[in-house]
């Protein structure tokens, strides 16, 4: 077999490959640049649009296994409140920053797998895995300094004078002791499993061990504050 030039006949893939790397004599540099630019916009816009579709509440709860989470979330202030401002699943579980978002989307492949194999397909199975699932989310939130909470909430803009006394006091304590949102708000959108406090403590200790940091001495900080407060002015 040979082609019209007398050489051996090339396969389709080889011809496509050679054509792809040949100089485009039929097109000007401007044409190639403009078409490449437009193609890039269309590709990137489509990619980002598709990614954002997976951030919608409809997409998140389209799986059967998400019914329990959805029911619990609908009982919370993040779903229904006086102002009508809502935080949907992705607001708390998907980072806004690009590189963290892509990472979260790739890790979410495991959710599809567990939906398919039915790991949490019944209420009994769900309860069996609730503590482990919650611990994974707590670990991510603690490690990121509750980054997703802070997309909406910020200590800097909290007016403690219009908060309940206890809330204001606890938020001040959180600032003083460099605590993060998830340290107190573990069950903010879903029911807390039994033994959650012990599990959360274990999550924090594991993180500190992996980071090589010692446990913060909150008691020492409090003692120092008391001492400083008692000094003569």
């Amino acid at each position, binding site marked *: 077999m040979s082609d019209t030039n007398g050489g051996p006949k090339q396969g389709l893939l080889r011809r496509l490959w050679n054509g792809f790397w040949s100089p485009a004599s039929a097109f000007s540099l401007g044409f190639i640049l403009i078409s490449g630019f437009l193609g890039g916009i269309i590709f990137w816009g489509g990619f980002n649009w598709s990614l954002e579709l997976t951030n919608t509440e409809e997409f998140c709860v389209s799986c059967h296994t998400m019914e329990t989470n959805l029911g619990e979330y609908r009982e919370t202030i993040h779903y229904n409140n006086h102002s009508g401002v809502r935080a949907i699943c992705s607001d708390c579980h998907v980072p806004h920053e690009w*590189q*963290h978002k*892509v990472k979260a989307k790739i*890790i979410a492949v*495991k959710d599809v797998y567990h939906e398919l194999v039915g790991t949490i397909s019944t209420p009994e199975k769900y309860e069996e895995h609730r503590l482990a699932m919650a611990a*994974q989310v707590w670990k991510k939130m603690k490690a990121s300094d509750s980054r997703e909470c802070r997309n909406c909430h910020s200590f800097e803009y909290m007016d403690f004078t219009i908060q309940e006394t206890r809330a204001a006091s606890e938020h001040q304590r959180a600032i003083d002791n460099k605590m993060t949102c998830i340290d107190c708000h573990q069950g903010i959108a879903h029911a807390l499993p039994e033994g959650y406090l012990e599990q959360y403590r274990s999550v924090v200790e594991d993180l500190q061990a992996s980071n090589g940091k010692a446990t913060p001495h909150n008691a020492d900080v409090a003692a120092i504050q008391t001492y400083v407060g008692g000094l003569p002015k």
Partner: protein
Amino acid sequence: MLGFLDLLGTIGGNILSFPGILGLALGMMTRNWMLAAVMGAVVGIMKSLIFAGFHFSSVDMIDLGVAIVIGVLAASVGCAIRHKGATA
């Protein structure tokens, strides 16, 4: 399982972020393999520093390592594209 997915996510995030895209673009600007690799590595380091707010203590070592490797690989691919695709 989560550890592997965590690493895979970090790699994917870097491919679709500065190290992958800018590394590829910078690599396409030179025929010098070493220069391309160095530019890719610098992009990886800068990306980690920028997203850590220029606080060295906030830089995650695994993330930094992955960013550098992806930057070098992307820049090398870019350099290969330059070798293969540019006639002059």
